[in-house]
């Protein structure tokens, strides 16, 4: 009987998980999607409780309570910290998968008939994926949080990739051995765990902090795959389905990011990309024209169409509220204001959308790169707020540039360009941006929040009634 209830619960849960992702295709239905996810997860948990032989209710209650107590605060992090948070929970996910796999392996040592070839195979896969996701995600979180004791810059040493692949190879080899001799060779299991943990760390070390978002998405799909493996171990379809959904989502997001950066997975994983930044910072020969907030405000008032290009800087400066005020001031003057959103502006996909949404800017004003670029020539003023690489014309023509080929927002094609940043320092890609030296470009130096604030004051000052 319980068998049927459980299977029914799992079946409905599977359907709801699919719908949950499906409804994310439109902001209007997105929250329904979350609801579906919650219901699905609840069904999954309740269904599992029906399993005959579940007795340690105390332990379960305790664990759930702990998880609840950690989880709630973890959901309060500021939006700028979302990437770290995501990384941390990937770590938790990997840990859970790894531990369950380990437990199963040792439990079945006493009932080896259960350790069929594919079961053992699945366990090995689950454990390797789980534990490397665990350490890897922790490292990634650390780099994103810019912890002192974790080097931001990629750490490279000779034969690095070779040793990494080697490590993984050994782990896999041990795994295969286990598949043949799950009991006799059981002592290999801890070795595999250790290697997986180590590999997770070494995988991240050579990757620059700014590539972490891509890496996180990849770790996301690893976490999903480890759930799939767990599904094979426990012969549980729901685990396989949810894991697969998760895995494909992570994969697609990282592909989107790579495309938008015009880079390959290999380049992200082994390219030690951030390095180029060392040779950046070379003193500028050319100088860029400066503009004062007063002047900028006047220019903006004159414009009939303004396009704002937000970037990582706006996120760092937490300037979104000020930007909102600027938006209000301008629209109040019947000036058409649009936001040009680059797919990889900021440090995670959709980063800018969330920040601007937080500032209550209606999402039909957030225009995707491909839709806004055609309008650029008719745009009077482009206001770049803490963006850099995503508006770097070098990506279009300079074959030698590391971001050559990356699609960009054509800020240089507008009648005039105002750029807010603190200095002439480069962005994530570590290369200078000729846009700032163009005749039609003027710099507004300073922290994005402060500068935008000044602009707003200026506009409020002037009656605004013309």
């Amino acid at each position, binding site marked *: 009987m*319980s068998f*049927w209830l459980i299977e029914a619960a799992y079946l409905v849960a599977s359907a709801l998980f699919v719908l*949950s*992702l499906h409804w*994310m295709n439109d*902001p209007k239905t997105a*929250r329904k999607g*979350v609801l579906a*996810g*919650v219901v699905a*997860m609840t069904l*999954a948990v309740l269904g*599992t*409780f029906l399993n005959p*032989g*579940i007795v*340690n209710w105390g*332990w*379960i209650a305790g*664990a*759930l309570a702990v*998880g609840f107590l*950690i*989880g709630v605060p*973890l*959901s309060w992090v500021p939006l700028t910290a*979302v990437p770290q948070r*995501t990384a941390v929970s*990937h770590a*938790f996910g990997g*840990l*859970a998968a790894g*531990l*369950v796999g380990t*437990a199963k392996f040792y*439990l079945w040592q006493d009932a080896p008939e259960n350790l069929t070839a594919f079961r053992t195979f699945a366990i090995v896969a689950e454990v390797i994926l789980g534990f490397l996701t665990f350490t890897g995600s922790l490292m990634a979180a650390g780099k994103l949080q810019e912890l002192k004791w974790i080097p931001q810059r990629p750490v490279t040493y000779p034969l690095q990739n070779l040793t990494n692949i080697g490590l993984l190879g050994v782990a896999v080899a041990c795994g295969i051995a286990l598949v043949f001799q799950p009991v006799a060779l059981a002592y290999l299991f801890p070795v595999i765990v250790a290697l997986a943990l180590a590999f997770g760390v070494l995988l991240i070390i050579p990757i620059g902090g700014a590539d972490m978002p891509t890496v996180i*998405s990849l770790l*996301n799909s690893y976490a999903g795959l480890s*759930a*799939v493996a*767990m*599904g*094979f171990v426990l012969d549980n*379809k729901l*685990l396989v389905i949810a*894991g*697969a*959904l*998760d*895995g*494909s*989502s*992570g994969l697609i*997001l990282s592909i989107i990011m790579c495309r938008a950066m015009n880079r390959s997975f290999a380049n992200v994983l082994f390219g030690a990309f951030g390095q180029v930044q060392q040779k950046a910072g070379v003193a500028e020969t050319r100088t860029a024209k400066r503009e004062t907030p007063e002047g900028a405000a006047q220019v903006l008032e004159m414009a009939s169409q303004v396009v704002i290009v937000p970037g990582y800087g706006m996120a760092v400066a937490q300037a979104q509220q000020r930007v909102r005020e600027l938006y209000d001031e301008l629209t109040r003057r019947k000036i058409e204001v649009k936001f040009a959103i680059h*797919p990889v502006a900021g440090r995670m*996909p*959709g980063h800018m*959308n969330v920040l601007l949404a937080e500032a*209550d800017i*209606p999402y039909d004003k957030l225009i995707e790169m491909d839709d806004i670029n055609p309008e650029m020539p008719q745009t009077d003023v482009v206001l770049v707020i803490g963006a850099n690489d995503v508006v770097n014309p070098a990506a279009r023509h300079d074959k030698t540039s590391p971001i050559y080929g990356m699609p960009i927002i054509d800020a240089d094609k507008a009648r005039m360009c105002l750029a807010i940043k603190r200095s002439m320092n480069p962005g994530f890609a570590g290369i200078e941006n000729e846009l700032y030296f163009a005749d039609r470009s003027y710099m507004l130096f300073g922290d994005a929040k402060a500068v935008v604030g000044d602009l707003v004051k200026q506009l409020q000052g002037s009656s605004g009634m013309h």
Partner: protein
Amino acid sequence: MLCAPLLLAATASEAAAAHDGSPAAFTALLFVFLLATFIGLGVVTRVSRLLHTPLMSLTNAISAIAVVGSIVIAGQDHPPVITLLGAIALAASMTNIVSGFLITDRMLRMFKKPGGEKRP
């Protein structure tokens, strides 16, 4: 009205047990995996670009499905050390569920519909 006979018919758990880990069960999971992956690719590629950040945290919560396995390990009558492993796994998964769904909803609540007022 049709489940009745179905239920009667089922010498459920035993049958299920008999089936566990059999090659057929294994291939069944392979098919499920294949199909679910197709669905995942199809559905995610159509997620609105606006929502890629919430999507990340939502899938994050969904991947906490490992909770199912954790409950089984932690809940069944096993040597304490195993139960402990299970409990840790369970706590970790629960953390992801709670934080994942909460933060996703928090982000989505921010998205104002073009009209002007917040989404209900």
